[in-house]
Each structure stands twice: as structure tokens, then as C-alpha cells.
């Protein structure tokens, strides 16, 4: 199986597996072991209580909306960064990483401050009758903030590698700019866009810090699933927390598999191009 004459495979692989098990696999397995204490009926009841169902609606609904918004604006930002030269382009490029670098609690605090009725943005929304703080809208806005880098940073390199010759050929063959965009450019970035969407969505459903400040955490209305898990833990209701965590974990696994699958598809597509 070994490809090279280098030493150290046993040592490094042994350490990798040991450390992976101690830090990640055994702790995660505890969750599954704890679930085994519950009967299937109990598990179903805990995972589908009225409050749990409401929290899934809030979590998955706002994550979906935020990821879609990011697909539109993230692609636009990536396009501007790759295709156009304008003053401040490098700064714009650097700013994209800020949501990723900022501690989530700080993001949550900052967004709450600007969107509050007296805040820098909230004061313009107030006369329009738009309430962002303590509403699902605020949750979605926080998740847009968190997800932005994921879409931009997946679409950007694909746009960079798009050969200008392909667009020239389309033009020479008589395509209008619009036709080139719809028939040539958009199909080429679709795998990357889907990957970016999945990454942003996966990050959003588990997000906690940036959401709890702005959501107001009203039961059945603005309570996200990670917060409900937190509440159950604080009440020492470990069974309730475990059931919810299992649901989240299954969805996260599915997203991870989808992301890896999309990545493989994108690489195959790139290989054929």
C-alpha cells in the first residue's frame, strides 16, 4: 500500500488515529451511547415536541433564506472582485473574511447594536415598520453575515479559472453577452455555487453565538435549535438535549457528505472542461 520509501507511517498514522479518537470520535460517540438509554418512542417524542418542531422551523427556515441571499449577493461580490478593477478592490476582498475571523459573540453583539430601533441601521428600518431585533428576520440577517465568506470564497476561484477564450468563442459564434452569461458562465460556476450554498447552510444551522443576541429567544418564535439544546442542558434535561443534538448531528453528517460529493462533482467537471 505504501507509495514511498519514507519512514514514519506507523508513528504518524498511529498518533493521528489516537488523537482523532480521543478528541473527536469518542466524545461524539458518547452522544450516540447516551441516546441508547432512551427508548425509540421517548426519542421520537423528545425530538418532535411542539417546541422542538418550532425550533427546527426557525433554524432551518432562516438558514435556508440566508444561504439563498448569500448565493445571489455572494456571487455578485465574487464577480465584481474577479472581473472588475476598481479602487478599493483589495480592501473589499480583505473585508470578505471578517465574518469568518470575528468571534461569533462579537458578531451577534455588533449586529444587534446596529439593527436595534436606535441603531445605525435599525433607525431607518423603524419608520418602515420593519423590526429586525428579536424577530426571525434578525436571525436570518445574522446568518447572512456568517455565511457570506463561504459563498464568495468558493465561487471566486472558479471564476478566476474560467478561460476568457471560452467566452470569446461564444461571442464569435454570435452569442450576446446575456446568452454567454446564462449558457456558459452560470453552468460553469454552478457546482461551486452549490458547494458554497451547502457550506453556508451547514454553518448556519449549527450557529449559536451570532444568533442568540439578536433573536431574543422567544419560545416557539425565535428559539433556534442550538439554543434549545443549551436550555435543556442548563435544566439538566440531558435526555431532551441528546434527542435534539442527534437530529442536528444527522443533518450535519448529511450536509458534510453532500459537500464532499459536490466537491468531487466540481473536480470532475473541471477535469472535463
Amino acid at each position, binding site marked *: 500500500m505504501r507509495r514511498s520509501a519514507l519512514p514514519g507511517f506507523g508513528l504518524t498514522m498511529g498518533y493521528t488515529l489516537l488523537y482523532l479518537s480521543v478528541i473527536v470520535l469518542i466524545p461524539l460517540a458518547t452522544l450516540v451511547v447516551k441516546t441508547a438509554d432512551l427508548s425509540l418512542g421517548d426519542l421520537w417524542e423528545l425530538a418532535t415536541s411542539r417546541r422542538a418542531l418550532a425550533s427546527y422551523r426557525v433554524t432551518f427556515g432562516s438558514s435556508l433564506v440566508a444561504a439563498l441571499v448569500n448565493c445571489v449577493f455572494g456571487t455578485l461580490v465574487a464577480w465584481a472582485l474577479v472581473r472588475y478593477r476598481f479602487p478599493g478592490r483589495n480592501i*473589499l476582498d480583505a473585508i470578505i473574511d471578517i465574518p469568518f475571523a470575528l468571534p461569533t459573540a462579537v458578531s451577534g453583539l455588533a449586529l444587534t447594536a446596529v439593527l436595534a430601533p436606535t441603531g445605525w441601521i435599525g433607525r431607518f428600518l423603524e419608520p418602515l415598520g420593519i423590526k429586525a431585533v428579536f424577530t426571525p428576520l434578525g436571525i436570518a440577517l445574522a446568518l447572512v453575515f456568517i455565511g457570506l465568506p463561504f459563498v464568495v470564497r468558493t465561487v471566486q476561484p472558479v471564476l478566476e479559472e474560467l478561460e476568457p477564450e471560452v467566452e470569446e468563442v461564444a461571442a464569435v459564434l454570435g452569442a450576446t453577452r446575456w446568452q454567454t452569461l446564462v449558457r456558459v458562465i452560470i453552468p460553469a460556476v454552478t457546482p461551486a455555487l452549490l458547494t458554497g450554498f451547502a457550506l453556508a447552510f451547514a454553518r448556519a444551522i449549527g450557529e449559536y453565538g451570532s444568533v442568540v443576541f439578536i433573536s431574543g429567544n422567544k419560545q416557539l418564535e425565535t428559539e433556534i435549535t442550538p439554543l434549545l439544546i443549551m436550555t435543556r442542558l442548563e435544566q439538566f434535561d440531558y435526555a431532551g438535549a441528546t434527542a435534539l443534538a442527534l437530529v442536528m448531528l444527522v443533518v450535519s453528517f448529511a450536509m458534510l457528505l453532500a459537500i464532499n460529493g459536490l466537491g468531487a462533482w466540481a473536480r470532475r467537471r473541471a477535469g472535463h472542461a
Partner: protein
Amino acid sequence: MIATPAVAATHEPAWIRRLVIAVAAGFVGLFVLVPLAAVFGEAFRNGVAAFGHAVSDPAALSAVRLTFLAAAIAVPLNIVFGVAAAWAIARFHFPGRSLLLTLIDLPLAVSPVIAGMVFVLLFGKQGLIGPWLSAHGIKVIFALPGIVLATTFVTFPFVARELIPLMEAQGAEEEEAAIVLGASGWQTFLRVTLPKIKWGLLYGVVLCTARAMGEFGAVSVVSGHIRGRTNTLPLHVEILYNEYEYQAAFAVASLLVVLALASLVARRVIARRVEAS
């Protein structure tokens, strides 16, 4: 620009270009820059003295110490792992390789709340080995070990994910030459591999450290929020905010913003070195 048909067909009209740039800049400005500026605005709302008071408060200082301590333990652990994993995965072919890569990514896919929760289920009072630990006087949850474990979990993949693709791209020829010429494994790693990967390694370390210092959800579950004892900087921000000490909360938050911006600058500088190497 002369609008020859070829140019018109491969470039957008100027007004569309300007519109796209304006929308992109406006979106990012509104969503990222305005909230960031607001943190500093609120931090200095009551003047520099109030800011200084908030960040030199004993509870704030102990939060700074704990944040640095947790990162100082978690980051080296993940560096050793990242280097070992990269050597095993990028230099050898073995069955189950892609499964191993997926497992390394797992902590990124798991909600921070669940990352903290699994350690409570393991080491907490009602946990699997919690009763045994408390019988022996060992405290993990609501104490430093729990905070370190949660931090290590959420920052687990960062170094490995930087090094694996880098070492794969660089190939093993130079290492193989060193071995053939009689160098030992350690000599090869220290003299050949390490100089080649040092910038990539540093990039991973910056990512790992920034996340370690900023982690909120996972640490929040295991910390117990004991003021002056198990409070990290992000948790301290939350406590101040919940106690309606807004200006102090934003003052401490602004420290974290400065830390985050410094990590971004470091990443950009190092990324250029990685490309050059």
C-alpha cells in the same frame, strides 16, 4: 472604450459594471463594515476613561488570561496532530484515506453547542465517567480542562487542513532523496520538510489561534460562567451584556475585534509567502 462587437460581447456595458460594483460594495459595507464600526462606537460611547475602566477590570483581565491559557494549550496540541496527520496522509497511500479526511473535517460540521455538550455527557456529573472523576477529585466540566477540551475540539482540523493539500502539492521527491542519501526520518523532517511547509504551518496556526481565542458556543456549554475563574473573553462579553453593562461589553468586544483584524492581516501576509514558496 470603443464598443466593437467583440468587446460588447465579452464585457458588460459600463453602467452594469458600475452597478454591480456598487451593489457588491454596498452589501459588504452594510453587512460587515457598519456593524464593525458600531462596536468601536459603542465601546467609546462614554469616553476613553470608561473604556479603560472596562478593559482593566479584574474580571476582564482574568478572562484575558484564561483565553490565552486555553489557546496556549489547545493550539500546540493541534499543531502536533496536524503535522503528524499531514505526514501520514500526504506522504502515503492507504485504504480509507478519504474517510479519514472526512472525519478530520467533522468538528467543522458539528454545531459548537454540540461540541461542548459531548464533553458534558462524558465528564459531567451525570456523565459516563463523571461520577468516577468526581470521586477522585478531578474537575473537568466548569473548569479549565473542559474549556481546553472544547477549544481543542472546535479548532481540531485547522492545521491539518492547511498542511495536507500543501504537502500533497509539494510532492515527496526531496524527502525521498534525503532518505536515500542517508538522513534519518527526523533529520529529513526537520531539515527538508519543515522549511518547505513553515509558511503553510504558520497560516494554519494563525487560523487555529484566532478561532481558539474567539470560540463562544462550545466553551459556553462547559464553562459554567464562573466570574474570574472560568470566564473567557467572549463569555465575559456575554455576561456584561446580560447585566446591561453595554458600554463595557462593547469595550471588551472591541479587543476581540482587534485580535480578529490582526489575524486577518497576518493571514494575508503569510498567504503571500505560501504562494511564493
